[in-house]
């Protein structure tokens, strides 16, 4: 490739990458500033503190008091306000509970989704029975139904069961195999040679044991993908908690963050950004540790879909 072309590609890609990163860096940077630096124009990128030097001693001063020391030497030091995070947690009031609820939901939905979808996907791919493929087409068809269609009846159903205001509406459903995950796992299950199951069957192995001891261990990558996607979905979900949760003590992090913003929004941007960073950070960390699984999973949904 010609040098010019190559250079152009790098420039374009770097520009795009910077565009992707700036909002996130801006979030972290704002989260580490004192209030007056959030509103400064031109914007402050790196939080700092100002000191005035008098007789060799540094004393911190606020920016608005700068004119009071016309002759003194002013020292500027990089100083992120880590305490903003503690303040944000304190102002969100139930932050530890939000975190606990979110983790409980993530745990339960991941367990529920992986186990139930694996079972269903096995039944749809590795056992031959009459009407199987017709039923599978029906399962696929349910993916077409948009959530708003079932939203109101589900709300009424959960209300009737007395579950509104508890976490149950947000995890019980995951134990009943969603079509998308069943589809994903079925695709994977079908790639495992039939002979393996046949050999085990001849040896008198029960179908459940074949599932548990032969097929599942071979499908670990696909199960990881399903678990990861479910974790992400539960962590990020906003509409579900918004509809089904009523008490503040039951909120998830996502809903708690929005609630905090609706109460204090528009003024304390540094605390809001610190709180947002706290909600986003675990996902970013998780992504960097499981990048390969992520990328494979996304590609899998696209190509085989």
């Amino acid at each position, binding site marked *: *490739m010609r040098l010019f072309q*190559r250079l152009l*590609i*790098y420039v374009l*890609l770097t520009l795009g*990458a910077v565009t*992707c990163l*700036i*909002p*996130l860096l801006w*979030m972290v940077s*704002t989260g580490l500033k004192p209030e007056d630096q959030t509103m400064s124009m*031109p*914007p402050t990128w790196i939080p700092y503190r100002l000191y005035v030097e008098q007789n060799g001693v540094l004393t911190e001063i606020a920016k608005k008091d700068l004119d009071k020391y016309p002759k003194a030497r002013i020292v500027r030091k990089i100083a992120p306000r880590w305490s903003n995070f503690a303040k944000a947690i304190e102002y969100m009031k139930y932050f530890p509970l939000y975190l606990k609820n979110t983790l409980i939901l993530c745990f339960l939905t991941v367990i529920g989704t992986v186990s*139930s979808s694996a*079972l269903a996907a096995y*039944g*749809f791919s590795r*056992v*031959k*029975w*009459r009407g*199987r493929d017709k*039923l599978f087409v029906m399962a696929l068809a*349910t993916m*077409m139904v*948009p959530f*708003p*269609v079932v939203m*109101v*009846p*589900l*709300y009424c*159903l959960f*209300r009737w069961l007395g579950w509104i205001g508890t976490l149950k509406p947000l995890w019980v*459903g995951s*134990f*009943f*195999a969603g*079509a998308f995950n069943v589809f994903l796992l079925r695709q994977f299950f079908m790639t495992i040679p039939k002979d393996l199951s046949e050999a085990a069957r001849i040896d008198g192995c029960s*179908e459940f044991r074949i599932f548990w001891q032969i097929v599942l261990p071979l499908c670990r990558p696909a199960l990881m993908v399903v678990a990861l996607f479910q974790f992400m979905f539960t*962590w*990020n979900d*906003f*509409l579900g908690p918004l509809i089904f949760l009523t008490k503040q003590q039951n909120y998830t992090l996502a809903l708690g963050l*929005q609630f905090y*913003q609706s109460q204090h929004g528009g003024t304390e941007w540094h605390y*809001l*950004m610190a709180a*947002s960073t706290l*909600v986003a950070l675990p996902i970013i960390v998780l*992504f960097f540790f499981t*990048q390969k699984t*992520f*990328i494979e999973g*996304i*590609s899998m*949904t*696209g*190509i085989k879909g």
Partner: protein
Amino acid sequence: MTHGERRNLWIGLAFISPWIIGFLAFTLYPVCASVYYSFCDYDVLSKPVWIGTMNYQDMVSDTAFWKSLYNTLYYTVFSLPLCLVVALVVATLLNQPIRGRSMLRAIYFLPSLIPVVAVSMVWMWILNGNFGILNYCLHWIRIQGPQWLADEKWTKPSLILMAVWGCGNSIVIYLAALQDVPRSLYESAEIDGANVWSKFRHVTVPMISPVIYFNLIMGIIGSLQVFAQAYILLGGGGPNRSALLYTVYLYQNAFDYHQMGYACAMAWILFLIILFLTWVATRSTRRLIYYGGE
């Protein structure tokens, strides 16, 4: 049915029983109930009262309904093609022999991972008319930035901007497809004297057309149902309801005004719109999609 067949039937049903129960309780029953409620006056507290097609008739004369539909279609018409093109261009560039590809791919993917609530908070701050960095950047190139979220002309573009920023998902899907295109095709195109553009137009695009179609359909379904960003950034729809999206208005009807019947009727209209647009997209692209060996 032989003994073995019957046995297999029971085993198969046992394995898929979680799905069957879920299907009955969380899909089939709600779908049927939703149809019924859409013909009822229902506020959750009292029993539903059958009112025939009144909900659907009310929709015709409900200006907020038409506004939300217009806003949602406007949003989809601009954000979807923009996302498809931007994602394809970025993926094509990433597919060139360059260094640091996996790092760049991770960076481009990152925005679509961040929880939507956090993303909305950040953009609320970026789009702030007085202290937001977007207006500061515009100021740099001598443009007076608008009050993005407070000016009814700019609320929808704000949401579209956010959508384009978060299209990393499609980039990864495109990139995976691009990596599967055989190199030999490009080599033969080069021998025939094809330049960069004609290689892209006559080799790349046809080869990955099923994936473009997949992203298109997913995009239609996704953008018509966008909720969280619009709800968080613009609450009740923003100035003059300029960014009242369909699902936000549906949510308001259901949970703020307690008009569950009307909300269900709206949901069914949404479903029909999605089906119709998916059908149109499928019809009009059918002859353009190339499925490898099939």
